[in-house]
């Protein structure tokens, strides 16, 4: 049959009803003509009609044959099968709901995880020719550092030509945006003028940045993201708005759907000439010439940089594709989750296959009769496959609904870098789910279909349910499926157990301060002159009076997060210049956070603007610069700063304990603290270009209520400065474990789902086995077996399945250990206690699941049962 023929026939199958009506009309016409002809030949009307019908033959045959000629017979069979399946589905609603829910659970979980995997790992980035986008990385002897200092970036401007376009990106900064009565805290992204060219977009309205915008003293301009522009409202191009207290003109608005890299709300010009200090630049390039050209050009450029002395000779440069860079961090996590959720689906499939086997067995007689009436084995297999497919499709449909819900929960648990991708269920996810659903349907129906094709007619028809030994070979299949479920469940429980242990260990790590009842509220101060000092002093005093606020302190950055680092010199040591974490704090900061005092004193009220400039250093700093000597009384000073930012040399007056600001593992970083009253205005500007300052409030109030009460106080002192973030310090610390927590929670959820499925599987097997063997059990009891013995026998069956499953699962976990190791933060991937716990959970689950049917078996009354037979 040609393709066209198939298409016509497919149409024929689909248009069956209309074709039949037409055919009936045609036959009616035929019979009428034949009858008239017969009348003309002289027959009386009634006989003429009958003669016409006789010579036509059987009308029904003609219609059927015509339909067979018209359509695709197998399609009609499938439709009939599906109709049959739908009828059986309605006939046993409990069974159908169970199967559909199992499939929905598997498909839903997979669709949700796939949405994330697809969005983060598979889908091309939402930019034109995303494969050409790459980040320039610096590396020195194994360690990589993505950021560059201003001198490198200045030279990079000269790299632009036909084969590549390069742009520099500064650190994203929180800024206050004010327009009329609207005050927003937004993320501003400083970029060099070729940024939009590199990303492959132009402004939707207005213009991009030009060279003149980058000059010192240029009129401040801003390019707004589409969402932000819509939030402000109106046609903003050419209009003015206030950013960080400075009036900016809106140069352009970006097109809808364009996602800035890194995520931000607006773009501002990067003033390279002004910001040559500090290694804070990211370099992004569009490499049009392919890998070879890019590498060649990079080698030449690196050599030039080395020669000019802009970059140390030990430092090399390389391009990393933007896609890899963005997804690198979460790739292992997502792949692990994808594998785990696949196991859940596998368990669900095995369970459904077991249920369908039981059902097929109950229908053995029906199938045998159909087979005896001429349905070939192929036809029966097809019927069972269609049935499996109907269940799978219904389950898949419900599963998509579940996936929507699951995705919301999943993204709530996810670390923030995963939620930035704008993930949602779309065509790709639906297509994936459809494919998975079809696979599931086939996988679930395969075992029953294979069994059905080998049905023994005579036994099935005559033996019925009374055959005592009849179920033996079939229950072997079900037991096998169940062992598989328990084994997979063991794997998931083990993974969840190990990750939970890791999470517990991480929680035990001492961050060096008590997060306790402290609420952190951040702000981007607009001013960097002495008025900031005045605002701070008044706000501290007034906020301390607010009901519910026990203590209040402030600092230049949230404790437990990355802070500003500055190049520091320690006169009198030969230590090289290096970037050291730098914070200003208000009096009472250390006491409030419970940071240990190692020696000397904390900073306090006496460290005022006029007093001797002092600093407090942490233990890591003392160990780095004064491994043998006494740090107290020594001096430190900030190096390499323009005169207007100058900070006086400071005397160390105390050494405090280390706090963990960049993560819970690894060594603490050296840090210094200065009193906020002693910070010169220029340094405020440096500090808050990249980091929001932070208010710390010791309170029992919820973060939202605290922010509400203090917000009023702050606004009365200084209108128009919104809080950028309000959170508890506990959550700040929790963010360090976000990746581990995400993984542990999801694995625990998957393991729980798997456990539930396995329990219903064990229950189902035992219950069915009891109902099948009730006669045998009755005979045994009549012959003297005690109820206890019957109970033990049934329980034993379930326990054997569970033990074999657990052993298989533990054996399979062995080679999988290394996969998990990288997520365990140094913990062993084989943990006897976890393994024992998993085995105990599964065995007790098996006993519990089979207890009800086993008790029922023990209560069988032999006399009643045997009489019924």
């Amino acid at each position, binding site marked *: 049959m040609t393709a066209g*023929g198939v298409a016509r026939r497919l149409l024929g199958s689909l248009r069956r009803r209309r074709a039949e009506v037409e055919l009936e009309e045609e036959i009616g*016409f035929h019979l009428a*003509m*034949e009858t008239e002809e017969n009348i003309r030949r002289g027959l009386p009307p009634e006989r003429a009609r009958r003669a016409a019908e*006789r*010579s036509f033959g059987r009308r029904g045959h003609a219609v059927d*044959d*015509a339909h067979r*000629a018209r359509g695709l017979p197998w399609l009609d069979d499938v439709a009939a099968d599906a109709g049959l399946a739908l009828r059986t589905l309605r006939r046993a609603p409990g069974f159908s709901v169970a199967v559909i829910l199992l499939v929905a659970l598997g498909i839903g979980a997979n669709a949700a995880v796939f949405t994330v995997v697809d969005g983060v790992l598979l889908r091309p980035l939402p930019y034109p020719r995303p494969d050409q986008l790459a980040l320039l990385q610096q590396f020195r002897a194994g360690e990589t550092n993505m950021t560059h200092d201003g001198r490198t970036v200045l030279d990079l401007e000269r790299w632009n030509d036909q084969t590549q376009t390069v742009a520099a990106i500064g650190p994203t900064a929180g800024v206050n945006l004010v327009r009329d009565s609207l005050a927003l805290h937004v993320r501003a992204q400083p970029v060099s003028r070729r940024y939009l060219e590199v990303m492959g977009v132009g402004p939707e309205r207005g213009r991009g940045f030009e060279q003149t915008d980058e000059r010192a003293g240029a009129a401040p301009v801003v390019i707004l993201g589409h969402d932000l522009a819509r939030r402000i409202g109106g046609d903003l191009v050419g209009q003015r708005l206030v950013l960080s207290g400075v009036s900016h003109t809106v140069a352009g608005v970006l097109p809808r759907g364009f996602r800035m890299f890194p995520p931000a709300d607006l773009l501002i010009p990067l003033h390279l000439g002004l910001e040559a200090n500090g290694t804070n630049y990211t370099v992004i390039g569009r490499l049009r010439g392919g890998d070879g050209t890019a590498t060649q050009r990079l080698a030449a450029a690196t050599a030039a940089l080395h020669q000019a002395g802009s970059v140390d000779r030990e430092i090399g440069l390389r391009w990393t594709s933007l896609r890899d860079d963005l997804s690198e961090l979460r790739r292992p996590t997502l792949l692990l989750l994808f594998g785990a959720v696949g196991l859940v689906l596998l368990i669900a499939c095995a369970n459904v296959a077991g249920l369908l086997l039981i059902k097929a067995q109950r229908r053995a007689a029906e199938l045998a009769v159909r087979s005896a009436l001429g349905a070939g084995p192929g036809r029966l297999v097809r019927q069972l496959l269609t049935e499996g497919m109907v269940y799978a499709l219904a389950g898949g449909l419900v599963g998509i609904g579940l996936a929507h819900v699951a995705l919301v929960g999943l993204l709530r648990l996810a670390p923030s870098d995963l939620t930035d991708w704008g993930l949602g269920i779309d065509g790709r996810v639906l297509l994936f789910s459809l494919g998975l659903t079809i696979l599931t349907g086939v996988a679930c129906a395969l075992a029953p279909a294979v069994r059905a094709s080998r049905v023994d007619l005579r036994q099935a028809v005559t033996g019925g349910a009374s055959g005592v030994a009849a179920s033996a070979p079939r229950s072997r299949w079900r037991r096998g499926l169940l062992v598989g479920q328990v084994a997979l469940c063991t794997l998931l429980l083990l993974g969840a157990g190990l990750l939970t242990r890791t999470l517990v260990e991480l929680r035990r790590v001492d961050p060096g301060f008590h997060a306790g009842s402290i609420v952190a509220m951040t702000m981007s101060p607009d001013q960097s002159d002495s008025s900031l000092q005045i605002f701070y002093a008044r706000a501290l005093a007034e906020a301390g009076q607010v009901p519910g606020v026990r203590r209040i302190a402030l600092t230049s950055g949230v404790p437990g997060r990355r802070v500003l680092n500055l190049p520091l010199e320690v006169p009198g040591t030969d230590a090289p210049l290096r970037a050291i974490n730098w914070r200003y704090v208000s009096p009472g900061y250390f006491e409030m956070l419970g940071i240990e005092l190692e020696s000397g004193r904390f900073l306090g009220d006496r460290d005022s603007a006029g007093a001797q400039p002092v600093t407090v250093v942490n233990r890591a700093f003392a160990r780095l610069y004064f491994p043998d000597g006494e740090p107290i009384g020594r001096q430190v000073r900030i190096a390499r700063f323009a005169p207007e930012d100058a900070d006086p040399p400071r005397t160390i007056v105390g050494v405090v304990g280390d706090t963990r600001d960049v993560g819970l593992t690894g060594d603490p970083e050296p840090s210094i603290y200065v009193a906020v009253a002693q910070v010169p205005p220029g340094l405020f500007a440096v500090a808050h270009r990249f980091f929001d300052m932070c208010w710390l409030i010791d309170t029992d109030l919820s973060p939202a209520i605290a922010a509400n009460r203090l917000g009023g106080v702050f606004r009365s002192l200084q209108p128009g400065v919104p809080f950028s973030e309000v959170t508890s310090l506990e959550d700040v610390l929790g963010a360090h474990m976000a990746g581990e927590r995400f993984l542990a929670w999801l694995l625990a959820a998957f393991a729980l789902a798997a456990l539930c499925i396995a329990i219903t599987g064990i229950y189902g097997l035992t219950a069915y086995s009891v109902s099948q063997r009730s006669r045998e059990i009755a005979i045994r009891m009549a012959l003297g077996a005690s109820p206890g013995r019957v109970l033990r026998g049934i329980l034993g069956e379930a326990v054997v399945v569970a033990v074999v499953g657990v052993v298989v699962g533990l054996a399979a976990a062995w080679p999988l250990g290394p996969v998990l190791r990288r997520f365990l933060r140094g913990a062993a991937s084989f943990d006897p206690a976890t393994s024992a716990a998993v085995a105990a959970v599964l065995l007790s689950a098996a006993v519990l699941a089979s207890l009800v049917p086993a008790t029922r078996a023990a209560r069988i009354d032999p006399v009643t049962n045997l009489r019924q037979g």
Partner: protein
Amino acid sequence: MGEKQTEVPYGSLDLLILKTLEGLGSLHGWGIARRIEQVCDSMLQLGQGTLYPALVRLEQDGLIKSKWGTSDNGRRARFYALTPRGARHMRVEIEEWVRVTGVIAAALGVSR
């Protein structure tokens, strides 16, 4: 319709329909049945009902086409006509028919 009548040999009905349409142009089902019975001189027994599945099949294969029209006595009827592809197909099939029947006739020792 007596016992002497022979059933239409398998496969030849299609050919008879195509030939009929070639000769008479557009024709409805009853007309085709009448025509076949006439030309076969009522020697062949045409179960008229078997005509319609054959028509459907031929149309599916693109050998004939149909449209609804009005018959001579003013009734609505479906009229069939040969397509160019059907005409080609018919010529090939007739050659084949002649060849096969010739071979079989020769094999049976019947001269024609």
